[in-house]
């Protein structure tokens, strides 16, 4: 029961943090510098790892499915399979997992350290709400950066699959056939659904990590504990939300 109470308390606290951040939405234009800084941290610095990861996810997916599909004589549909899997599921989820590990952990660590070393208390006594300058620019930045990051991830995944399909002797589906199959079954809403999912995941990751960081109590040892908590909670929420968002979008 205590555990359940704690979970309900955390959900309530996270929602409250969002509402408090929203109250300061009108200050966002004059926090443009902070917004750009967060866009750089969240988006630009994550770009290399997103491209590498999604490229190889597409490649492995093509490799694994290519061999199986050949047995059924369906290897001409490999483009469709890789394309749809990456755009609807693997792209948004893998980019979100990567953002949780890379950006979420950094946010939780930074805010937890600010809390432990009383920087957050200093902001409160200065009548500068922490939600305004610590949470709002990060939320805005993730909402702004998540769609392009995911789109780049999806395209890299497609090309990873295309490359393996063409140059793997067992598969040997050329790029033209691969992309023709990909296009024939792909609809615009598949792309928009994937981007919407990524947007939801990114928003939840940043909110959970900010909440966990700002609610750190104790000494420096708790910073590490907060980072672990934030990343684990984010990963669980990504996968749980993935089910519900997919169900809602179908």
């Amino acid at each position, binding site marked *: 029961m205590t555990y359940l109470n704690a979970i309900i308390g955390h959900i309530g606290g996270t929602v409250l943090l969002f509402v408090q951040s929203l109250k300061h939405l009108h200050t966002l234009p004059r926090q443009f510098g902070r917004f750009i800084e967060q866009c750089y941290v969240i988006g630009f610095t994550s770009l290399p790892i997103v491209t590498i990861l999604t490229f190889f996810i597409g490649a492995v997916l093509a490799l694994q499915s290519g061999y199986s599909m050949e047995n059924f004589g369906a290897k001409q549909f490999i483009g469709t399979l890789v394309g749809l899997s990456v755009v609807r599921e693997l792209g948004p989820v893998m980019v979100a997992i990567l953002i949780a590990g890379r950006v979420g952990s950094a946010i939780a660590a930074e805010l937890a350290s600010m809390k432990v070393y009383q920087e957050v208390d*200093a902001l409160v006594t200065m009548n500068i709400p922490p939600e305004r300058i610590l949470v709002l620019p990060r939320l805005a930045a993730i909402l702004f950066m998540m769609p392009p990051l995911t789109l780049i991830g999806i395209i890299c995944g497609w090309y990873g699959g295309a490359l393996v399909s063409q140059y793997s002797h067992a598969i040997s589906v050329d790029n033209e056939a691969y992309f023709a199959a990909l296009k024939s079954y792909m609809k615009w809403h598949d792309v928009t659904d994937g981007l919407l999912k990524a947007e939801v995941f990114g928003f939840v990751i940043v909110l959970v990590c900010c909440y966990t960081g700002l609610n750190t109590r104790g000494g420096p040892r708790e910073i590490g504990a907060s980072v672990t908590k934030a990343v684990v909670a984010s990963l669980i929420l990504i996968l749980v939300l993935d089910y519900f968002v997919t169900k809602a979008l179908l």
Partner: protein
Amino acid sequence: MATAFTSSPFVDKTFGVTVKDLNKSFGRAKVLRDINLEIKPGEIFCIMGPSGSGKSVLLKHIAGLERATSGEVRIGEFDAGDPATRDKVHLALVFQAGALFNSLSVYDNLALYPREHRQCNEAGIRERVMNALSILSLEKAVNKFPSELSGGMKKRVAIARALVMEPQLLLYDEPTSELDPVMSATISEIIATLREQTAVTSIVVTHDRTLAMNIAERVAFMMEGRIRAVGRPDEFKHPTDPVIANFLNPAIDLKNPRFKQLENSHE
């Protein structure tokens, strides 16, 4: 040391602090017990006591950073625990470890408050920041980051940051810890001069007997979460209470059984 503070219309009004039947517990540990205090507007009030007696927790309640288990703290007529009070009272707290923003330079640490509250243009902010830095002899540290400063310098930057805020209520948590005697004396002078020039109410939590006796108009002694005594510094020159006397003039008794134990353990 010559000090000059910018005059601000906001500093015209100063506030007293009333603490009524304040109790605070962390789990089973009772940290504050039935605290009652009346701090007058414009007064320099020092809170002394041994480590763990609850001085800093009391200060955090006055700053609105902790919620009381029972009782209340009021700044003027406003509830210190209510976030809306910070819109009505300019309050600054000098934290024991400085609590500077590590990602910002010294200049930006000081400029954050006027910038966020849009009090003046960038030229005005620069003037206020440089004025505060010059008072604390920190002009050369203006572009440094907190990680490049010594503990004492961080403390001085924290005080400068409080000065930039032009507060009506100024709280200091151990302002002279980690400082050398010359800088401690300077800080004492700054606290006194600031009060003289702006009539700001100052509450100082300290272990530093010299600081408290030199600048305070009244001193409160805290022991085990309770206020043991409140009075003018001269009333504590020859304290009758043996606990306070021992705190102010600790006598090391080498015949104390604890020293005997230590001696035996070395043998």
